[in-house]
């Protein structure tokens, strides 16, 4: 009692295992221990989420006190002496781990997280060779009926990270904890299947799950089969955020730009053509930029909100269906690509569209859901046949057995592999906005942009506002990074208190670099590195504005006519509908 808010400017002196540490009073014991070179084990703790302190693995001893303290939830105070390796601490931690393991199926060999599981790592570190308790996992059937997210709740360790993510970060509230004691579990309202919940398939729950309880529906076998079918022409598109994250699966630093190796790997896997979603991102800018100008000049519904992020689309349909008219009619780059891949491409390449299998590699789980939407398929075929996450692609490469890191850089195939710097930054929050501004400015003013870098829209801030002067005409734009922040803007729009013309909303915090399909272990720091990678890739490209993409120009000249043409509307635009949940 009598505890008062700690002061970040007050430096306190403590010791941890006898090692003196000076740190701000607001430092968690966990972080102070890191400063002393001591790694405290955690399970329910995640650096980007609200602390829950429920697993009790990170307990430490406060000198002179019997009851242990959780290092993840307690801040330090002047003069405190912590012991992280006393017999009591070691025993408590091990018992906690054993108690979790007693409930766990321990089928590591069959688990998607094998060798990449936080529980497995802990078990290894703690040396749990002789179990204290009998292994009695609950028999809970695996839920995989939604085609996107698989829930194997028998493996759940009840850390609650997914709940924190779904409730507090994404404000979706599809899952929560229910019941008590031994019945305590993470579940949906009334224990219904995920597709009957408010789930938007963003996969952020998967991204923070420490074990194999949550993962994407694995579609790699479908792709292997298509590749193995000589009658099929299998093409692949890769989203921008994949190229700065895939390397992590092969031991590279987050943010490493692996575009060349990625293309080489896809070719090696046997895809007939390796294309780039970035091409379609440039097309998206042409369509969406013109849609914005059209709405601004003809009194259309404003602000215009971007529609690239399928998790966001699911969110607006579920929670803000009244604002659907604000959402751009443009399909996402994945689906624009898909529509062109089975119309423009076969025409140009002289291939029977019926034989084309179109695969996309996405940092996203909601893309799987999107590709199956009836309202989004317009080529006469299914536009995108299979969507794989970054993780699934890594799995295929590992199955194929070649050394990713030793591959020589290769180039995307033309024409659907030609793209610009504007497109590559689609992979990060603020990127779509910046790409649009780079084009809209020049279309409206007829002038060349002296500097294409719009620094004001970059970064991981929750809400980013900017004003752009289009030759005397001011355009106010805003970017929402993640859905909690999206609500802030959407509520303003609803209340009529908003004077923005253009809004970018990305479902996942950080944008696609933080997508639900990215390599496990993603944190804010990982996202920052990936973001830096994308901006570097942008700088290194010779063309950095979508309307200057020669392949896009050719597409309009040869096939679509002009942006927002009848054919564009047929292939590249769609309408979404309220979801009643």
């Amino acid at each position: 009692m009598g505890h008062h808010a700690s002061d970040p400017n007050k430096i306190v002196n403590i010791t941890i295992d006898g090692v003196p540490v000076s740190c701000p009073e607001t430092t968690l014991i966990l972080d102070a221990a890191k400063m002393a070179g001591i790694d405290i084990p955690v399970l329910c703790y995640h650096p980007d989420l609200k602390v829950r302190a429920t697993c009790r693995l990170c307990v430490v001893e406060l000198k002179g006190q019997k009851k242990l303290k959780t290092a993840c939830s307690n801040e330090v105070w002047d003069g405190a002496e912590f012991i992280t390796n006393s017999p009591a601490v070691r025993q408590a931690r091990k018992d906690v781990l054993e108690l979790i393991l007693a409930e766990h199926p321990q089928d590591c060999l069959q688990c998607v997280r094998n060798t990449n599981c936080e529980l497995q790592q802990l078990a290894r570190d703690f040396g749990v060779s002789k179990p204290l308790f009998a292994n009695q996992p609950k028999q809970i059937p695996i839920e995989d009926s939604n085609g996107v997210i698989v829930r194997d709740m028998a493996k759940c360790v009840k850390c609650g990270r997914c709940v924190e993510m779904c409730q507090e970060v994404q404000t979706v509230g599809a899952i929560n904890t229910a019941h008590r004691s031994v019945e305590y579990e993470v579940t949906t309202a009334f224990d219904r299947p995920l597709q009957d919940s408010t789930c938007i398939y963003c996969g952020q729950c998967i991204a923070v799950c420490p074990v194999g309880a949550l993962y994407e529906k694995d579609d790699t076998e479908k792709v292997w089969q298509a590749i193995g079918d000589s009658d099929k022409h299998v093409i692949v598109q890769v989203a921008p955020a994949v190229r700065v994250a895939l390397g992590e699966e092969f031991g590279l630093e987050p943010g490493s730009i692996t575009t060349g190796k990625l293309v080489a790997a896809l070719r090696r896997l046997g895809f007939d053509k390796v294309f780039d979603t970035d091409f379609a991102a440039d097309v998206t800018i042409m369509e969406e930029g013109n849609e914005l100008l059209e709405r601004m000049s003809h009194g259309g519904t404003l602000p215009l909100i971007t529609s690239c992020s399928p998790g966001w689309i699911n969110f607006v349909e579920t929670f803000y269906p009244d604002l659907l008219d604000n959402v751009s009619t443009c399909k996402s780059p994945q689906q624009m690509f898909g529509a062109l891949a089975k119309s423009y491409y076969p025409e140009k390449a002289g291939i029977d569209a019926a034989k084309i299998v179109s695969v996309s590699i996405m940092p996203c789980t909601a893309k799987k859901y999107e590709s199956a939407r009836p309202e989004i398929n317009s080529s006469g075929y299914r536009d995108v046949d299979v969507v794989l996450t970054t993780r699934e692609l890594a799995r295929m490469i590992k199955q194929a057995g070649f050394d990713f890191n030793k591959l020589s850089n290769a180039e995307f195939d033309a024409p659907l592999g030609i793209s610009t710097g504007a497109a590559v930054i689609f992979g990060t929050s603020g990127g779509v906005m910046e790409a649009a501004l780079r084009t809209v400015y020049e279309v409206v003013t007829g002038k060349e942009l002296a500097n294409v870098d719009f620094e004001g829209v970059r970064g991981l801030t929750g809400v980013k506002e900017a004003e752009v002067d289009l030759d005397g005409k001011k355009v106010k734009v805003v970017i929402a990074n993640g859905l909690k922040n999206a609500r802030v803007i959407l509520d303003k729009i609803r209340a009529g208190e908003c004077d923005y013309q253009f809004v970018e909303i990305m479902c996942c915090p950080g944008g696609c670099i933080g997508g639900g399909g990215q390599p496990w272990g993603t944190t804010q720091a990982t996202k920052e590195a990936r973001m830096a990678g994308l901006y570097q890739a942008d700088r290194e490209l010779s063309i950095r504005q979508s309307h200057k993409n020669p392949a896009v120009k050719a597409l309009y000249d040869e096939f679509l006519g002009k942006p927002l043409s009848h054919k564009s509307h047929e292939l590249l635009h769609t309408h979404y509908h309220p979801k009643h949940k």
Partner: protein
Amino acid sequence: MSKINKLISGNCGVICPDCTEDYVKAGGYQGLKKAFTMKPEDIIGEVKKAKLLGRGGAAYPAGSKWEQLLEIPEFPKYIVINADEGEPGTFKDKILLGQDPLRVIEGMIIAGYVFNSHDGYIYIRGEYRAIQKVFQSAIDNAVKAGYLGKNILGSGFEFNIHIMTGAGAYVCGENSALLNSIEGKAGRPRIKPPHLAEVGLFLLPTLVNNVESIANIPTIVLEGGDKYLSYGTKDSGGTKLICLSGNVVNRGVYEIPFGVSLRDAIYDPQLGGGIPNGKKLKFFHLGGQSGPIGGEAQLDTPYCYKALRNAGLSVGSGAIVVMDEDVCVIDYLKGVTEFFIHESCGKCTPCREGNKQIYAILCKIAAGEAVQDDLVILKRLIDTMTIASFCGLGQSAAVALNTCWKLFKTEFEDHLHKKCPAQVCFTEQERGE
């Protein structure tokens, strides 16, 4: 020294519970009237002098708790009364709530006045539905008589009381879980710090007191802290409502001054009246399922916070469950553990999984299937749960077990050899009789 002192329970069963006139006739609202003439810090001064320790079980000094809340500059502040009396063997708040609710209300108004708080919540356990009606009627009558609502007794002070009902979760008796429950959230405890005084109900500064604690306030204000202290011992002021149950002749609630011995509490004809049927005492369980178990050797301990603590025991809620020689310790502990398996909120690992594993080992012991290693693991679990659980529930779930472990170690060992001194476990054949 008299072994009964009805300082706060004198009206119980005597006056019409919800009748303001009766309550006033019996001396009610004198404390409130006096409080209105005093400064808040002076009232707290009396509470501190009284050495009133929290009667819910934690025995936190009420005066300090009040002082801390008074220092916090944010408003509004809330007064919350924990009437989620869920400890098995505890039924003393029930008496106050049902038979003298106006005393509880008076205490709440005084607290409201001290903290300039205008809203008080009383969280009454769901099982006390009938009592909730009585309490509501008492609130309504107090409002009509001008003791609640706007401008109480012409003082200009406004205070309102809202009844919130629990839904049967023991863990909601944990103060932060209780506040979550009032807020409409799942009743699971919160991380502390921040403490509830700072970030309490609806994230605002909040006082959470037990029913019995708050019922003492009018007396402390009226008679003064020194006088109140003198009713008890040097360190434990006043009286305590104890709940006698189990194998005891006179089951019920008694208000005793601190300092009466456990032996008197159980055996004195005015109080427990001894063990029925001439049986011998096996043990007594203090303060509810989360409390310690004591035996014959501890009977002469005075019933007060300090002496009990020194004897490895505690007051807790005031429950005294008496068990005679026919009770098997292992069998009894199985029941205790089953209770915690049912009542754990489930969010932290040691409590959620630990109780379950403890129960499994106790069942093995009771079935004569346990080996020495099981006892080792049992002891480990007791320690881990006690020092590593999230909240008081998990931390104290193994207290009964731990105290029995010390008192009846041989009985644990005996069961390994299929011997049950109370002849509860095993068949005659198994026992080799």
